């Protein structure tokens, strides 16, 4: 059973204990899930690729909620095929909860196989429902897992970042697993992905120690100092026209094209789409206090001075 369903169950149980409350509530929820990009539906081939790349997971009861991304496939799939796929991924600890594909007519087939359906550009669907807002007290952010040693060059400090990212390749890659957030079920159901102007959150007051700002679904512009021990997060880009002394996390929901621009670079941590770097020791002299931009080049975090 997926995390999402567990959550709904617990709400229902709670409700039956109170005779005055509605027996259920529907609430928007956001969960972290894996996205399994499949480049074939040849189950034998997939099984072989899984046993090579996901051997560690085989037979483990991990039940990780997983999105089956079939977006690149011309699918003519059947209920039986999806059921078999579910069963296969489950054996590797991946609990499929939904498929992702542009063709809405697959929704019925998926439903018959106990799976949800969502359109490919999940990011823009999220944005429809999302408004940028400041959340001063704790919200969930992707937690850094390991410190990455930095190598620094004359002009740009380049860091190789790691993530729990597995790409399964036979001749051409058969699957890619990425860390990916899935938006709430009901925000996705009946809203088609429309072009939308991403809302930008502008903060013109200092962000102090212990404070956190989150620009949900868009960019963040900060016009005053971000203190050590403060944190700014955006699903899009972050522009800071002041000193950054705390943490800045752009592309918080996985947008690898997000960037961070900083007028004065003295951070504790920077992150783009979960690729992060800490500055336990001070940033290199060539960067500290300078104007820089931070972006991902493939999976390397690049910090380059703005000249």
């Amino acid at each position: 059973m997926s995390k999402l369903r567990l959550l709904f169950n617990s709400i229902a149980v709670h409700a039956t204990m109170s005779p005055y409350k509605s027996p259920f509530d529907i609430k928007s929820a956001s969960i972290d899930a894996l996205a399994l990009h499949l480049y074939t539906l040849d189950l034998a081939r997939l099984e072989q690729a899984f046993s090579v790349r996901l051997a560690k997971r085989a037979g483990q009861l991990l039940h990780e909620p997983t999105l089956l991304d079939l977006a690149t496939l011309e699918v003519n799939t059947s209920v039986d095929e999806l059921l078999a796929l579910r069963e296969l991924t489950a054996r590797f600890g991946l609990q499929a909860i939904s498929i992702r594909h542009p063709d809405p007519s697959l929704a019925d087939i998926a439903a018959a196989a106990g799976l949800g359906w969502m359109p490919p550009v999940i990011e823009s669907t999220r944005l429809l429902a999302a408004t940028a807002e400041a959340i001063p007290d704790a919200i969930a952010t992707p937690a850094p897992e390991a410190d990455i040693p930095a190598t620094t060059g004359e002009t740009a400090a380049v860091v190789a970042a790691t993530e729990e990212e597995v790409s399964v390749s036979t001749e051409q890659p058969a699957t890619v697993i990425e860390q990916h957030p899935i938006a709430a079920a009901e925000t996705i159901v009946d809203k088609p992905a429309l072009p939308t102007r991403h809302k930008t959150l502008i903060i013109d007051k200092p962000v102090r120690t212990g404070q956190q700002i989150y620009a949900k679904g868009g960019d963040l512009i900060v016009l005053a100092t971000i203190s050590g021990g403060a944190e700014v997060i955006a699903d899009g880009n972050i522009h800071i026209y002041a000193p950054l002394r705390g943490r800045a996390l752009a592309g918080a929901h996985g947008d690898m094209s997000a960037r961070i621009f900083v007028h004065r670079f003295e951070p504790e941590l920077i992150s783009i789409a979960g690729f992060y770097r800490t500055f336990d020791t001070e940033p290199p002299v060539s960067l500290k206090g300078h104007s820089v931009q931070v972006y991902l080049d493939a999976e390397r975090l690049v910090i380059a001075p703005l000249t």
Partner: protein
Amino acid sequence: MARIIVITSGKGGVGKTTTSASFAAGLALRGHKTVVIDFDVGLRNLDLIMGCERRVVYDIINVINNESSLNQSLIKDKHCDNLYILPASQTRDKDALTLEGVERVINELAKDFEYIVCDSPAGIEKGALTALYFADEAIVVTNPEVASVRDSDRILGLLASKSRRAIENLEPIREHLLVTRYAPERVEKGEMLSVNDVKEILRIPFIGVVPESQAVLQASNSGTPVIHVNGADASDAYKDVVARFLGEDRPHRFLDVQKVGLLKRLFGG
């Protein structure tokens, strides 16, 4: 309209109560009718520093619980005419200090007083939040060391988000940075942050420094706010702070190491 001023810091033991006593006394010496409230329930020591601990009968919690009138609880200061003290309770539970209760007390005080000075407890919990909630101005007391500056930064965040002015979207609290226990010799040796370092990190208007001073401890022990110890460096410093608060332009002092003159060195001062 009464002005409500909170003396706050986040970190404990940095000189909030010392500052509350001398700052309130300084306003009174300048002719302003002032009351200083101790918000440090359970740990009250403002009354000790003001030398009125033996005259405490009722405290702020009695007023909130309607067990005494405000007039019964206010203690008239023995050093100057325009100053009153509203003590904290030594024995009551902190939770008795409710926002509604405090609001009632402050509204009543506002009818009689020009300045209401609130001595905040340390921390960033309920007690400190209650003390800063109604403030119009805040004196952020900081020692020149990293942990204290960090905590002051945190308090500045709370002033900007958890105060009445922030919540009701009114004009923000006016913030003043006061660096206390400043020892220029130790700054020169690199053992303490300089005033410029602290200003650079916190970036709020600077109201002055109070030097590390023997006079403070002596004055506290004798129940006299140090501002009354004429000739003492800390007294001069607090008088400057009060003057600047009232809008006077006074040059900053006590920032540099005092050069001991040749004669003084030869003849031992």
